[in-house]
């Protein structure tokens, strides 16, 4: 691990001021990604700004939605009564990720900012355009069973690893931030992540020194009828091969609102408006779900080892939709 300076911020203003003063500074919360990658020399920030003392730990709900503080731990978020009852997809996604110990450590904003698990990104001896722009991509010609099918480019095929973010993007979450100049802004999660394109090292819309303060999740009748289904190589403590976050609002047999997002197969948490369009107005039945799954995966670009995930992702989505439709009967 490279040496760094450690600073503890006591307010959001102090944190963004410190980030402006120190080149190569990063914010430090749970550390579950950052410390891991610093040990591997994949990340080597000159300064760590500890933001754990900032008062960003509350979950504030009203009838229109819920505001989740940046420092709320994944476990506290998953267990919160409002989340369990009104946004079950979020609790289910969080509980499907990592282990109890890691969920106790990982923060909401840290989960949004977590880096890919691509083995070539994590190995400083490998070529990786995300870690070292312009060096090439060893994943495209290497072992790519876990890699992405959607949103890839010839420069990067790394999968976004989060479960939480797949649920949040299905829920229309909005990221609230504080900029180094003191102003605040709101970024819909659907615009927060950048496709790799020619610049896979640029992963989010955040500016340098911009601090996430909270995430807002607007309520909608569909949110109560939401569900997360994750398929993986072992039944616990493993990243997704495929996953689906779904929410359905039905009137009688017909779907009036649908939310679909997919995990484990996208370079970013993958919202699928095309699948949602197929579902809306149609009867909640297997034929509709299969059509939605076909639409969701229509643009899939399989690599040498991950083609099985095209069919697996379709079946994951069909099963997730079937389970949530079944719950409503």
């Amino acid at each position, binding site marked *: 691990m490279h*040496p760094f300076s450690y600073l503890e911020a006591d307010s959001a203003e102090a944190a963004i001021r410190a980030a402006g003063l120190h080149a190569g500074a990063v914010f430090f919360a749970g550390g579950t990604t950052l410390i891991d990658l610093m040990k591997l020399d994949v990340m080597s920030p000159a300064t760590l700004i500890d933001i*754990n003392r900032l008062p960003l730990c509350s979950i504030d709900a009203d009838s229109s939605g819920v505001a989740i503080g940046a420092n709320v731990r994944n476990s506290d978020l998953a267990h919160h009564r409002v989340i369990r009852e009104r946004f079950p997809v979020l609790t289910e996604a969080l509980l499907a990720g990592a282990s109890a110990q890691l969920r*106790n450590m990982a923060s909401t904003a840290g989960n949004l900012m977590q880096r890919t698990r691509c083995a070539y990104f994590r190995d400083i001896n490998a070529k990786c355009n995300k870690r070292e722009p312009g060096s090439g991509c060893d994943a495209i010609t290497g072992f790519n069973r876990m890699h992405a099918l959607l949103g890839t480019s010839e420069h990067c095929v790394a999968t976004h690893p989060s479960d939480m973010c797949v649920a949040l993007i299905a829920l229309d979450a909005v990221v609230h931030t504080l900029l180094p100049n003191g102003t605040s802004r709101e970024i819909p999660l659907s615009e927060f992540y950048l496709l790799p394109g020619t610049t896979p090292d640029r992963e989010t819309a955040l500016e340098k020194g911009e601090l996430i303060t909270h995430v807002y999740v607007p309520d909608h009748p569909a949110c109560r009828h939401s569900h997360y289904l994750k398929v993986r190589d072992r039944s*616990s403590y493993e990243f997704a091969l495929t996953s689906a976050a779904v929410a359905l609002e039905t009137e009688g047999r017909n779907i009036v609102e649908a939310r679909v997002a997919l995990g484990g197969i996208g370079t970013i948490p993958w919202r699928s408006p095309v699948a949602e369009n197929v579902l809306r107005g149609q009867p909640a039945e297997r034929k509709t779900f299969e059509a939605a799954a076909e639409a969701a995966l229509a643009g899939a670009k399989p690599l040498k080892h991950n083609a099985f995930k095209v069919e697996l992702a379709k079946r994951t989505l069909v099963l997730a939709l079937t389970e949530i439709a079944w719950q409503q009967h």
Partner: protein
Amino acid sequence: MGVITIPSEAALQQANVQFQLNINGQTRTLDLDPRTTLLDALREHLGLNGSKKGCDQGQCGACTVHVNGQRTLSCLSLAIAHQHDEIATIEGLAEGEELHPMQSAFMECDGFQCGYCTPGQIMSAIAMLEEAAQTIPSHATPVVSQPPSLDDLSLEEIRERMSGNICRCGAYPNIVEAIQYARRLRKGSR
């Protein structure tokens, strides 16, 4: 081959930092490089080598300690970032010669073979029963808004809730048995 980076002069000159940690109810003063993990601080600088270094990358759970009562991986924690916290390690469980009920349960049920993962298993299991007592759901809970009570915790629930602790010997059946035994002891003590 990887590139060897020569640390800058400023980096080489970086001084240790003096700070205090509260461990097992005692205040300990340390003078450490900020890079030191909580696990290395415990094992290499405080003589508390009960917490084990298995993978050192947050995948095995052998380093599990409690931070403010919550199970945490000390290998992915920076010691310097825990100056405001109460840390509990395996060494703080027993009272004199009297073992913690979870330690007794692991002995009684033979919940280990080589013993290397055991401190992490025990620290994790204690926190796990506490979480269950607070009716916190898990991935194994069929409906997350209706979590099981401590008494109703199924084998599947116990296995899921302990999945962050790997045992290479495969002592899992007896570890699960020990946790069930400790749960009964816990009820008996109430």
